């Protein structure tokens, strides 16, 4: 769960973390007005707002935007207008967006802060040691600034400070950060900056807090030039104000619908549609299908679903996906009961008809009931006894269907 940079910066400001002054804009005209509100002389930074990182080194899909990325320094008001015009309603492609990129629906106009040094700063949860870890690494101009790439390329140049479950950094931890950054400013300034971020991290049930980058000005003042907060989806019920900010524009419609029901839906290529209950199980099916030369269009994971209506609505997502040329249902029921899936298939088929091949395989809780429901339905579908033979049957049926 993610929010835009300008929204995250508002939260930063609320927690007393220094961020540049900025105004959001949805049109080039608004961008110009925003720039005048921010400062009279400039320069300004025009920042494309999408829910993905590495915007600076990204590219726009529409050539009118030129070759530059989604973060641009603009020296005049006219430049602000031009840059906003080029970015808005364009798709920004970065190494975190996938090939399609993400639509830029708004730009953030910010005052430009001249810095002498930049660092990536992150607070993350290390699940192996069950601790919060502070990550810090220098950022060079125009390099690929993804922390994962940086850590792979230069693992020794990252400072990792295990904070356990401390709500404040210890004196020794502050010292190690100062030493790593070669920070010459006031110790208290740095301490306050880090502790306020850590406070924000816990207060909002964040699972990751990234500032890429923080910037140091000549007078050793620290600024959060960027802001990314990942919220724990399972803790959102404790933060109603954050729920309101969550914007799922750009998320696939089917994915959105499934996630609303508490299930997981993923699009891959063209090919078969998989309905299963477990991510490991789905991986195994996708791998086995590949071995038989079957590509996968999408995969629906019903997890431990028990709600009949939600299951039915989710099955509909797969059965109405035009990229799907055959359906493989593989349910190993424990918590989830097989008969609910069978009922769902019948309901959707009665509603829309069943015009592509479908093979189902059930094991576990209420297996016999499920098979019985499907076999007596009169629908043109097949029942398999295991994954491999089920995929065989589906492959054959798809070939006949063509």
């Amino acid at each position: 769960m993610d929010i835009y940079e300008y929204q995250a910066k508002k939260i930063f400001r609320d927690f007393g973390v220094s961020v540049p002054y900025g105004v959001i804009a949805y049109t080039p005209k608004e961008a110009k007005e925003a720039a005048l509100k921010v400062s009279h002389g400039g320069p300004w930074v025009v920042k494309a707002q999408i829910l993905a990182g590495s915007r600076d080194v990204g590219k726009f899909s529409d050539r009118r935007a030129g070759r530059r990325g989604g973060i641009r320094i603009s020296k005049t008001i006219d430049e602000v207008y031009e840059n906003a015009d080029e970015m808005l309603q364009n798709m920004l492609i970065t190494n975190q967006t996938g090939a399609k990129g993400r639509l830029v629906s708004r730009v953030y106009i910010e005052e430009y802060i001249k810095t002498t040094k930049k660092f990536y700063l992150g607070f993350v949860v290390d699940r192996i040691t069950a601790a919060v870890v502070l990550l810090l690494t220098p950022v060079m101009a125009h390099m690929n600034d993804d922390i994962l790439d940086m850590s792979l390329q230069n693992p020794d140049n990252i400072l990792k400070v295990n904070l356990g479950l401390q709500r404040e950094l210890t004196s020794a931890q502050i010292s190690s950060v100062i030493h790593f950054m070669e920070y010459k400013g006031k110790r208290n300034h740095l301490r306050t900056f880090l502790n306020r971020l850590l406070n924000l991290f816990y207060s909002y049930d964040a699972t990751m807090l990234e500032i890429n980058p923080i910037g140091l000005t000549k007078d050793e003042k620290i600024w959060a030039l960027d802001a990314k907060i990942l919220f724990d989806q399972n803790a959102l019920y404790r933060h109603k104000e954050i729920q309101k900010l969550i914007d799922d524009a750009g998320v696939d419609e089917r994915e959105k619908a499934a996630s609303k029901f508490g299930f997981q839906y993923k699009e891959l290529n063209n090919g078969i549609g998989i309905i299963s209950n477990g991510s490991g199980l789905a991986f195994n099916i996708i791998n086995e299908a590949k071995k038989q030369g079957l590509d996968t269009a999408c995969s629906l994971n019903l997890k431990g679903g028990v709600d009949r209506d939600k299951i039915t609505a989710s099955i509909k997502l797969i059965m109405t996906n035009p990229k799907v040329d055959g359906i493989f249902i593989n349910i190993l029921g424990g918590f989830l009961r097989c008969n609910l899936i069978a009922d769902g298939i019948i309901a959707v088929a009665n509603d829309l008809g069943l015009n592509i091949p479908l093979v189902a395989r059930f094991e576990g809780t209420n297996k016999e009931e499920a098979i019985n429901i499907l076999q007596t339905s009169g629908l043109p579908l097949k029942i398999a006894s295991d994954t491999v033979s089920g995929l065989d049957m589906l492959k054959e049926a798809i070939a006949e269907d063509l």
Partner: protein
Amino acid sequence: MAILVDSKTKVMVQGITGTQASFHIQRAIKYGTNVVAGVVPNKQEDKHLGIPVFDTVREAKEKTKANASIVFVPAKFAKSAILEAIDAELELVVVITSGIPVNDMLEIRRKLQNSKTLLIGPNTPGIITPQNAYMGIFPDNIHKSGDIGIISRSSTLTYEVVLEINNAGFGESTVVGLGDDYIIGTGFVELIERFNQDKKTKAIVLIGGEGGNYEVEAAKLYKSMPHQKPVITLMLEDPLPLTRDSGVATDIICNGVTSFAERKKLMQDSGIIVVDNLSSLTKELAKL
């Protein structure tokens, strides 16, 4: 012999009156599980499914000598329920609940550090000793008693593995689901050690999950163990694109293990047999 759970284990059920808990506990009792108590704060009834219900874990433990708990309590209230079970010094707590907030799990993990409790889960199918007893939500018609110990991050893929193993003529000593949430209570290491001491278990099968640093820890342990039982691991490459939300990137940065291939090599170097599909798994078992 088996590990962790058998028909002598005295099991209490936290959140016993819920619909799902009731459904699965009835089945577990029929299977042979010794369910002795239920716990529901502010209980409305003294008995549920014929089992005495108590307000607190401590009271249930005192009155029934229960030594293990299975938790069905909804995620919002799970932290409190789990901390209560750890405080009462139960030996084993199995958490079925999924979606417990990360911050809550961090607190629970801290509490576990100096406790007498082994926490399995959350988001686990549980622990089953076939044809004997289980604490969990297993489909009860698929497991068969035998000498293979299984430890898994996945739930349903484990059922698939069990079916394949049974078809090949083997059976399971005990199957342990570690759980598939972002943070889990116990990793592979602790359970490999337990299976290693179990006389019935002849070989151990590991099934990994997303990321895979728990497996890497297991590899390190295995390499250092003096008397090893054969360990086979099923490693499936994630066909879906990696997302930052999944925490895999953090695993890599914090623990330094990179690609799937590198992880695989680390496992192999430790002496663990690595397979990438189910039929190879049973072929390797047959060779032992």
